[in-house]
């Protein structure tokens, strides 16, 4: 029975040695997602669709897309990026800021096609000379788009009191969310609007924080698209609908889910744009002529049902979401 004692060791060793990866000549794409979310995952769909359109499809075995999701766990995220780096994947697709930052820190050679991420300055990854990392490609977003989204609100809404009061929640643990909040604060000061911003650290507190905002008699709710808002949007929507407060945002996916109107990037198109770049790289096998670019597709969209509920007349240049 002595042998039985060491069985687990043998078992684990066997496991480790049995998983050897085989190299083939099909290009390998490592796709890194930081967490699960219904809206965010559209970026991945867009990315793979763009590859498919250029003739790199998983079904025809012309490309191998290895998808890994860290489920919101940073040690796992680091491991995933390490795995892709050591497998020497041809390129990495990184979705959301944290994945992009992790990948940029771990490799200076493998091209990284980012999506749903802010500009290199926003991510703080520029060198002292102001250069963005040489292996960063894909589609990124700056804060300027928020201006347009935010300025929609005074155009469409009449204040209940003397001044328009807009409430928002922002996530302290995301750089772009805190940046966006500061930007909106300055916009609100210019537009003679009162802004009440409350911090939120996890989607678990969403309901409480939303309720507390709604208790402050706000005219509208601005859903700043960050991870916590994506995760807890349904809760926010329910509370706002009960209190008859319309939601405005800057991301088309949230309008589909029930916000009134938005001007901003479409997450699916965002991923698609990064995917087009990745496909170009796979065709040429070099990164010449590629660089990171701003998100191209920004839409003015509105949700007909929500607009009707709040009697809001949306300008003609807005299209209804399907």
């Amino acid at each position, binding site marked *: 029975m002595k042998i039985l004692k060491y069985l687990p060791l043998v078992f684990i060793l066997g496991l480790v040695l049995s998983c050897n990866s085989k190299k083939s000549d099909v290009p390998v794409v490592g796709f890194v997602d930081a967490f699960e979310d219904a809206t965010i995952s559209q970026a991945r769909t867009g990315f793979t669709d763009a590859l498919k359109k250029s003739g790199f499809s998983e079904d025809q075995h012309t490309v191998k897309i290895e998808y890994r999701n860290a489920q919101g766990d940073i040690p796992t995220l680091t491991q995933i990026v390490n795995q892709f780096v050591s497998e020497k994947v041809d390129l990495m697709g990184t979705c959301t800021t944290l994945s992009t930052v*992790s990948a940029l820190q771990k490799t200076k050679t493998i091209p990284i096609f980012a999506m749903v991420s802010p500009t290199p300055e926003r991510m703080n990854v520029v060198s002292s000379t102001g250069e963005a990392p040489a292996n960063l490609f894909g589609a990124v977003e700056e804060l300027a788009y928020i201006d347009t989204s935010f300025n929609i609100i005074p155009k469409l809404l009449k204040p209940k009191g003397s001044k328009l009061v807009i409430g928002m929640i922002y996530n302290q643990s995301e750089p772009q969310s805190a940046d966006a909040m500061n930007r909106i604060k300055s916009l609100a000061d210019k537009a003679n609007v009162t802004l009440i911003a409350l911090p939120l650290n996890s989607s678990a507190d969403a309901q409480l924080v939303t309720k507390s905002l709604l208790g402050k008699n706000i005219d509208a709710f601005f859903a700043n698209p960050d991870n916590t808002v994506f995760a807890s949007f349904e809760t926010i929507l329910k509370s706002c609908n009960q209190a008859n407060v319309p939601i405005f945002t800057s991301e088309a996916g949230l309008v589909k889910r029930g916000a009134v109107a938005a001007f901003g990037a479409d997450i699916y198109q965002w991923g698609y744009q990064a995917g087009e770049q990745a496909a170009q790289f796979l065709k040429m096998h070099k990164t010449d002529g590629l660089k990171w670019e701003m998100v191209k597709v920004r839409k003015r969209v509105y949700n007909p049902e929500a607009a009707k509920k709040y009697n809001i007349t949306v300008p003609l240049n807005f299209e209804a979401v399907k």
Partner: protein
Amino acid sequence: MDFYLTALLQGLCLSAIALGIYISMKIFNIPDITTDGSYTLGGAITAKLLVLHQPVFVVLPVVVAAGALAGALTGLIHTKLKINALLAGILVMTALYSVNLTLMGRSNIPLIGTASIFSFINISADFNHNVFWTLVAFVAVITVLIGYLLKTDFGIAMRATGNSESMVRALGVNTDRMKITGLALANALTALSGFLITQFQGFADINMGIGIVIVGLGSVIIAESFINWLGITSVWFSLLLVLSGAVIFQCVLAITLSIGVDPILLKLVTAVFVLLIVSLPRLSFKSSA
């Protein structure tokens, strides 16, 4: 094999946490949740100071002191205010979130072109090999210090406090002070892990500490099962096993990833793996007994 090397490196970076949890959990029987906060604290201070171009030998003592302070605070709340250890840890961890955010000024600081502990040793052309030797040296020094400490009269009193507090108090030892010191030591180690990981992964993030206590506990429990299985009584061996527990825990994650498990099942498979490691020796124990 490179992939397993990075898992090994990550395990070595996290072995300081494992030692910290070993001290709080195994020696004092205190489930210390402060860990989640003090780990991020270590990372936050490291990132902030390195971005301000401070040399590593300045950052290191600051990180250790800050971690120790956080632990001492938990100890004080627990012993002087007679508040349950678990709650004391949760309170300090919650408060540390704001402290960390204030220290960092933003929620994520990437390190670009800053000094790093991994730039001192340049034996091999491969960056990872240098990191490996740096970590081995670093962890060896910590382990020797902790091992030596546990062997001194003070350390023995500390270990006895965990075993039977009333008896040790009867011998005239101030057990409250023992607990405060022990928790300070444990959290200083935890902050060290934050210090190492931040430089290893190249960024500090406000959420990096969430659930990290599980990693430490998992490492200690894996070590525990080996300690029982092989019937080890020596302090040195126990510490070594705790270190390898941390490495095994990361390797398990690496194996799970490299098998290509559906991402949705990642955590479940990792948990089952650890369960296997921990339970198989026990199963075979029973059958051979």
